């Protein structure tokens, strides 16, 4: 469902020097897969994740999402793809502090271009109930625990019913018990909801939740 074909990400430092954040790599993530991308910091796994998440464009090569070449899409179309196709979960949760839990979860639906077949607010309230966040709807992110914040972030990723959840070090800011809970949650989403999950991590313990592991080292997929 998403394919990175011989992508390279490089930055020109000066006239003669070019820094390669990611050397020529090809990666394919299939529908309903649970993939872990593992590598030490500076390995290029974050760059890889940004490319998969359509947050960045490759310097060379092509990204193909469900048969569509990204290079042929404009900024608005790519934004809509991010909105409908991918749900992001970040290490620092990345909730918007001035918005309540419910508003944070609803935020992607405000940017939706397509007409939703469900009422996002109803859906959000249902998710909140299902994932044990009742009573926190009107709380601001700084008033709830880290584990709860990460759950809010996951619900925000789910509100648009995405095909894929892309999680960047989702347990990095959590204690191991809460981290395990979050990973189990992602596993459930993969198994029960058939949502494709890709996680980026440097911890082998976390990576082993994936059914397939992609190793990134020195800017190259190995």
């Amino acid at each position, binding site marked *: 469902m998403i394919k990175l074909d011989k992508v390279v990400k490089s930055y020109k430092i000066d006239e003669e020097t070019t820094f390669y954040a990611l050397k020529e790599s090809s990666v394919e993530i299939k529908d309903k897969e649970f993939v872990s991308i593992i590598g030490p910091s500076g390995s290029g796994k974050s760059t890889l994740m*940004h490319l998969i*998440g359509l*947050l*960045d464009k490759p310097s060379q090569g092509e990204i193909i999402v469900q048969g569509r070449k990204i290079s042929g899409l404009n*900024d*608005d179309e790519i*934004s*809509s793809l*991010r*909105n*409908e196709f991918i*749900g*992001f979960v*970040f290490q620092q949760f*990345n*909730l*918007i502090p*001035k*918005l309540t839990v419910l*508003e944070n979860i609803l*935020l*992607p639906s*405000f*940017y*939706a271009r397509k007409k939703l077949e469900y009422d996002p607010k109803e859906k959000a309230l249902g998710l909140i109930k299902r994932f044990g966040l009742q009573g926190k709807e009107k709380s601001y992110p700084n008033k709830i625990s880290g584990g709860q914040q990460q759950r809010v972030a996951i619900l*925000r990723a789910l509100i*648009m019913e995405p095909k894929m959840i892309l999680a960047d070090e989702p347990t990095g800011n959590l204690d191991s018990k809460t981290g395990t809970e979050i990973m189990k949650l992602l596993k459930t989403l993969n198994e029960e909801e058939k949502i494709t999950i890709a996680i980026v991590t440097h911890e082998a313990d976390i990576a082993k939740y994936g059914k397939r592991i992609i190793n990134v080292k020195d800017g190259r997929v190995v």
Partner: protein
Amino acid sequence: MTYFFFIIKSALEDFRRSKMQTFLTSLGILIGVFAVVTLTAMGLGLKKYISDQFDALGTNTLFVAPGKLLESRGMGASSLLGNRFDLKDLNSLKRVRSVKSITPLSSKSGTAKGTKKSEFSTIFFSSDAFFDISGFEIDKGRFFDKRDVDKRTKVLIAGPKIAEKLFGSINEALDKKVSIDNVSFTIIGVIKSKGGGGFGGPDYDSYFFGPYTTGFIFDPDKKFIRFAMKTDENINIATVKEEVKNAMLKRYKDDEFSIVEPTEILSVVNGIFGILNLVLVAIASISLLVGGIGIMNIMYVTVSDKTKEVGIRRAIGARKNDILFQFIVEAVALSILGGALGLGLAYIGILFVQPFFPAYMDVTSVTLALGVSSAIGIIFGVLPARKAANLEPVEAIRYE
């Protein structure tokens, strides 16, 4: 639509979280709008006040005043210091064919003693034609008539304000005696309120009106400060003026009197206030410009502060235009906030000065104030908003 309210709500939440910064930023707009609205309200009020004084006189009226009224020497000074007219002038003007009715005017100020209070007041002495020319209406009692003028009866018509002050109420004042500088008069009528007053010009509600012949008690020379006349509407006003002028020229030199239509005075007044308003708007524009730059500056800071937020929003699907819109709305909200506060403050200020100054706020200045402040928000918000919209998602989300 819900998205729009959502943006506004989150902008307000931002303001709530940094009240002081928000207030200081909108202060520039606040002061600018306050200045524009208050100053134009004062200008408008003064203009309306002056217009109202002359509007009451209707279209077919003329004044004859001493000196040159509408020329560089100015209105006030010449009419006070110039030569004054007498009965001979009145009779010669009465003979002018196109003048339908005429009244001489003179005045006397002094302490008026009523049953309840004593108050400094002024009597306007005129003929019975004055009420018709000035468009007065009687509330209680009657106007004085030709017989009162012929017989020099000591009767007065009172303005409602002074009647109430001296006697407690309008009804109480009727048929009572009032003494002014030790001359006793009977109040035979009270006029309906004419409104206005308070700023130098005549406040008819606080005046007495008496027959001009009776007024000679105070002025043995029997002089008048001016004539007011109603002209025949079938005759061109220019022709009437010419006839009146010829009558006056028999005794006076051309520059010793002036013949004025209320509309002429109005156009002079309008001209003066037009220029005044232009100057006020120009001054206020500078403060609005400074206010706008303040908003632009703080919006740039806000964009930096919110780089991460922009990154998050972009990651979850916001398009460049969504971000652009969000920041423009925020800038507009900020400047409208300033505008609304300035407007509120101006309103309070105007209420405060109204008792002694005819300030007058109209819909135009309110609309203008809010329109201009939103325009400032848009104009000065666009550049910072564009900066935010053009942030690279991947750079923005990594920003700490």
